């Protein structure tokens, strides 16, 4: 083997590795479903507050929203795991990342929020920023990196809206929740749809 053979061999190795790494590790479906579910939950919560509903309705609503999301993700994950053709380290890290973020968010919604009598939206937005930045880097997906920055900016804005210095728009309207619901659509559902379309193109292109 001479130098040219070695160069060709290395070029071949690089091409095979790059080609194999282009395997889509995420199709965006979880982002879309969770984004739609949570934004609907947020709008429903806002509606209940405006209608002066009190009691267990909020707890039941969020148990349904979060429970539905977890069941969907679990079933999808188990089904895909049994048929997946390739498993990547990036995919394993993404699963662990969003599981961790999901657990923190559950703690904030069902324990932190009620105990501190504060809206958990600002803290949840900050957690989502972490999830989206790491996902964006692993998937090499710029929309998620932008989403991360927006979630952190949104988190700061939500903390302000919940503070005593903010002027309320409506006496019974939590402006931070309204902002969160809109951000969920813009910075989770929309990038999720773009990721899904990218995945579909990659699958179609082999």
């Amino acid at each position: 083997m001479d130098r040219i053979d070695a160069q060709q061999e290395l070029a071949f190795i690089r091409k095979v590795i790059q080609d194999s790494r282009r395997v889509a590790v995420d199709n965006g479906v979880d982002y879309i479903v969770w984004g739609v579910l949570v934004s609907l939950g947020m709008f429903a919560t806002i509606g209940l507050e405006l209608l002066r509903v009190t009691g267990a309705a909020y707890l039941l609503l969020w148990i349904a929203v979060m429970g539905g999301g977890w069941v969907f993700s679990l079933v999808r994950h188990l089904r895909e795991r049994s048929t997946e053709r390739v498993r990547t380290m990036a995919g394993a890290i993404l699963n662990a990342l969003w599981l961790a973020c999901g657990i923190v968010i559950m703690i904030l919604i069902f324990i932190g929020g009620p105990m501190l009598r504060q809206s958990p939206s600002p803290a949840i937005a900050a957690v989502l920023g972490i999830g989206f930045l790491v996902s964006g880097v692993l998937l090499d997906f710029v929309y998620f990196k932008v989403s991360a920055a927006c979630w952190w900016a949104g988190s700061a804005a939500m903390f302000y809206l919940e503070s005593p210095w903010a002027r309320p728009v409506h006496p019974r309207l939590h402006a931070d929740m309204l902002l969160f619901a809109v951000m969920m659509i813009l910075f989770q559902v929309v990038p999720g749809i773009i990721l899904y379309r990218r995945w579909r193109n990659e699958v179609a292109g082999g």
Partner: protein
Amino acid sequence: MADYDHTLLDDVIHSRIRLAIMAVLIAVDQAEFTFLKEKVNATDGNLSVHLKKLDEAGYVSVQKRFVDRKPLSSYRLTARGRRAFESYVERLESLIGKQ
């Protein structure tokens, strides 16, 4: 131009198909037989022969399971295979650097 001492190259990896299999498995954590077949562009029989050789050398490990009564084989690089691949690439790079 002086030729490289070919005995320094790992014979198990020094074959186009086996090299491609190793490169695919370096890129992904675990791959099914059909995925490897697509990426390596080999026939079932040919791929099986080369995978068996890599398995015998301890470079890949295989996990077999049934999904809907169909057998599925998934392959991944062993630590030994990863080291062998890295060493192979280092030798190629040193060849380019030396001359």
